């Protein structure tokens, strides 16, 4: 067959399938972006089935990495031992100080009737795979729906927040790391409690975005989760702020390349429950002409009071009638600076403190 002939024949043979395949790939991209395609389910299904293989394969890899890293440490094992002993003694002292401060904090919380920290439990998991692809910072864990893992849960290592669960299979789950391009986590920067969004950039240090103007951020400021949105618990350590010119970045505590075991924080912020309205608070059908003067008196009668503190020496009291009437009577009475809200009583919150690590005992 002459060259010119086969070239034309080949073009005619591949053009249509190529165009169809290109259209399908665009559909894939759009479907993936809009989450219309069950790509995550397919992924987790594959990792569920290959998990034993990945686990087996990961063992020699981890052993080789440990062995390779161990050779370097053999040379300075004595000085390392001395340094660790010294550090251990210092940490024991700090532990005693921390326990004393924790007791004192609990005492103050009781005195102030402050809402204690929300409680949460954790699930321990092992890393069985790490992505080594551009545009992607993920790890795969050996626990899934079967162990109670759900999308959105925080994943921490011994040092701090590592990322969030984003796809869950029966026995495996995918974690999106903090430096992944898709990662956005609300954080607070201490001191000052400056609120910001931690945005992954595929680099090792993610950016701090949505910072307020004149934030006064300084190098080395502590970055923790803010708990906004109720998905992640507040106060999980994330890293320290690093200022590079006009950019604010975060040097993360957690190291996804070195970590083998992680904990998944089973946390769900309890939703604020509105008090159930009483029968008197529900709107009644309006009548254009009351049937009797007695009905008018009933509508105008006060049923409940909301007291709001306005200053150290006065209390503003509003009396709401329960009916359709919007009449409000206001009177000032001298009183002490107390707060009371009879209409919206505070909901009780879980009182157990976060569980401590076995290492901390």
């Amino acid at each position, binding site marked *: 067959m002459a060259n010119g002939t*086969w070239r034309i024949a080949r073009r005619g043979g591949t053009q249509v399938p190529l165009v169809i395949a290109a259209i399908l790939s665009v*559909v894939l*991209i759009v479907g993936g972006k809009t989450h219309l395609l069950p790509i995550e389910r397919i992924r987790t299904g*594959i990792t569920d089935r290959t998990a034993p293989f990945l686990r087996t394969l990961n063992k020699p890899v981890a052993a080789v990495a440990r062995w390779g890293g161990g050779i370097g440490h053999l040379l300075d094992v004595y000085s390392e031992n001395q340094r660790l002993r010294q550090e251990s003694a210092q940490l024991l002292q700090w532990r005693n100080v921390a326990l004393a401060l924790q007791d004192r904090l609990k005492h103050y919380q009781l005195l102030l009737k402050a809402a204690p920290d929300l409680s949460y439990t954790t699930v321990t998991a092992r890393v069985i795979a790490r992505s080594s692809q551009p*545009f992607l910072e993920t790890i795969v864990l050996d626990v899934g729906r079967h162990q109670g893992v759900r999308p959105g849960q925080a994943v921490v290592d011994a040092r701090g927040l590592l990322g969030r669960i984003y796809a869950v299979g029966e026995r495996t789950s995918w974690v999106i790391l903090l430096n992944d391009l*898709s990662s956005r986590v609300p954080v607070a920067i201490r001191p000052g409690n400056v609120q910001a969004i931690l945005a992954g950039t595929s680099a090792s240090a993610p950016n701090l975005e949505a910072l307020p103007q004149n934030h006064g951020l300084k190098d080395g400021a502590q970055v923790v989760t803010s708990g906004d949105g109720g998905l992640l618990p507040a106060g999980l350590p994330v890293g320290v702020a690093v200022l590079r010119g006009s950019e604010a970045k975060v040097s993360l505590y957690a190291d996804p390349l070195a970590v083998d075991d992680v904990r998944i924080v089973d946390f769900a912020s309890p939703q604020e429950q509105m008090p159930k309205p009483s029968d008197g608070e529900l709107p009644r059908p309006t009548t254009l002409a009351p049937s009797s003067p007695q009905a008018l008196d009933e509508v105008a009668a006060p049923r409940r009071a909301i007291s709001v503190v306005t200053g150290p020496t006065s209390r503003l009291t509003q009396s709401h009638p329960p009916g359709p009437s919007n009449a409000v009577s206001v009177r000032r009475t001298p009183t002490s600076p107390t707060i009371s809200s009879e209409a919206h009583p505070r909901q009780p919150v879980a009182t157990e403190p976060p569980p401590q690590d076995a290492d901390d005992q």
Partner: protein
Amino acid sequence: MSPSSLIAAIIPVFSGLLGVALSNLPISLTAGAVPAPLLAFMAVYFWSLVRPDLMPPAGVFLIGLTQDVLAGGPPGLWTASFLAAYALLDRQREAFASLAGVGALLGFALVAFFSCATAYVIACVYFYRAPPMMPLLLQLAATVLCYILVLPLLNGIQHRLIGPLRSEF
């Protein structure tokens, strides 16, 4: 179709799928510093030039889709990138197929660069921001270097299992 010819027909696509599986193993010889090479792309490039009749667009689509699913990135990213490279090879097959020695390696590097550039553009659109180029450039470099090692293997498969003759297209 005889069993041997059937096996020969599926080897190119199978080698691409094997490349996908190997690329996505949780093993990194560089402790994660350099992304895994695109082994699947090597198969797509090689068989698209040598036996395009055994590497149809549907085969490239399947390989790209498998890469997307196993890699965990945006769906369709590598599918579209591999197909873009395939379309380029389809139009310039004679030019690339006639290259030899260092020229053949440069030809591969050029098409791999085109594929990675397509992936980068798609990632920019997908994430609404420009991701850092360095990981992709490192992956490109690793892919080109690995192609030197993989090329004799692919040549061996072609000569021993599929047949020495170039396709009639």
